[in-house]
């Protein structure tokens, strides 16, 4: 059974996001003064072939820890759905 994982990797709240700051400044220049902050992260779609949703979740957590995010500066969340 294949599952699609939609993974979001975001910078930890304590980390200054210079890219987000630059985007926020650009938005302010465009007149969007109500935009208070911008944080930029990564979105990944990963297809995982495992027997159960639980197994796919375990693999997904593992790969996020090992490679897809760096716990020193990033957090991750994901959603899993079966692929037909």
């Amino acid at each position, binding site marked *: 059974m294949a599952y699609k994982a939609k993974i979001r990797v975001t910078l930890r709240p304590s*980390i*200054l996001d*210079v*890219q987000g700051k*630059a985007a926020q400044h650009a938005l302010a220049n465009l007149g969007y003064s109500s935009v208070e902050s911008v944080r930029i992260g990564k979105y990944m779609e990963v297809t995982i072939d495992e027997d159960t949703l639980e197994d796919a979740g375990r693999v997904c957590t593992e790969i996020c820890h090992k*490679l*897809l995010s*760096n716990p*020193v*500066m990033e957090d991750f969340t994901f959603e899993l759905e079966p692929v037909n």
Partner: protein
Amino acid sequence: MADVTAGIVVFPGSNCDHDTEFAVASFPGVRPVMLWHNDHDLQGSDAIILPGGFSFGDYLRCGSIARFSPIMREVIEFARKGRPVLGICNGFQVLVESELLEGALMRNTGKKFICREATIKVVNDSTIFSDGYRMDEVLRMPVAHGEGNYIASPETIESLEEHGQIVFRYSDAEGRVTEEANFNGSLGNIAGIVNREGNVLGLMPHPERASETLLGSEDGRRLFESLFRHVTGA
């Protein structure tokens, strides 16, 4: 100096590997060997150097893919045995991704790739990499990086300080560790650290590009000299 084999790991996208080879080969008795990332054999290396560059195009995070190259299994084992490993620039990024060194290297606070000469101050002169320098000595070495902004949790920083693991800090030419001198935004102006055991050093500046007067500085030479001296036990 007795015979030393210095293994230089070559990842796809490494670009300071040959500069490092050239610098290393200028020491009498030191033989550089190039180690391809897909190999498993350290070819009898006495020290390992992870050179600068853009391994795997800096995809995902700098150094994150290189960290899982086949040869890294041997390099990590080598380091865990207490043998010397030096990571320069991208090599430093690979070392933090490998968790051989603590912390992480993020985008420079000014967002720009910075390529220029930097001045760094020696704040620990008793590691195997830095005991050829004097404490508080100011060194000139080039930097060339987009992600050199060192970060770590407050607990990690405290522990690095406590155990003397910070070896180099960005300073001005007079050795003042100021905010202006901290061009990439690193916490505590950190330019280079060692692990607790003292056998793994990572630094963002390029000692291999400061290894002869023709290049404008030879302040990087003594780093290699100390390392090779310790390897031979001289």
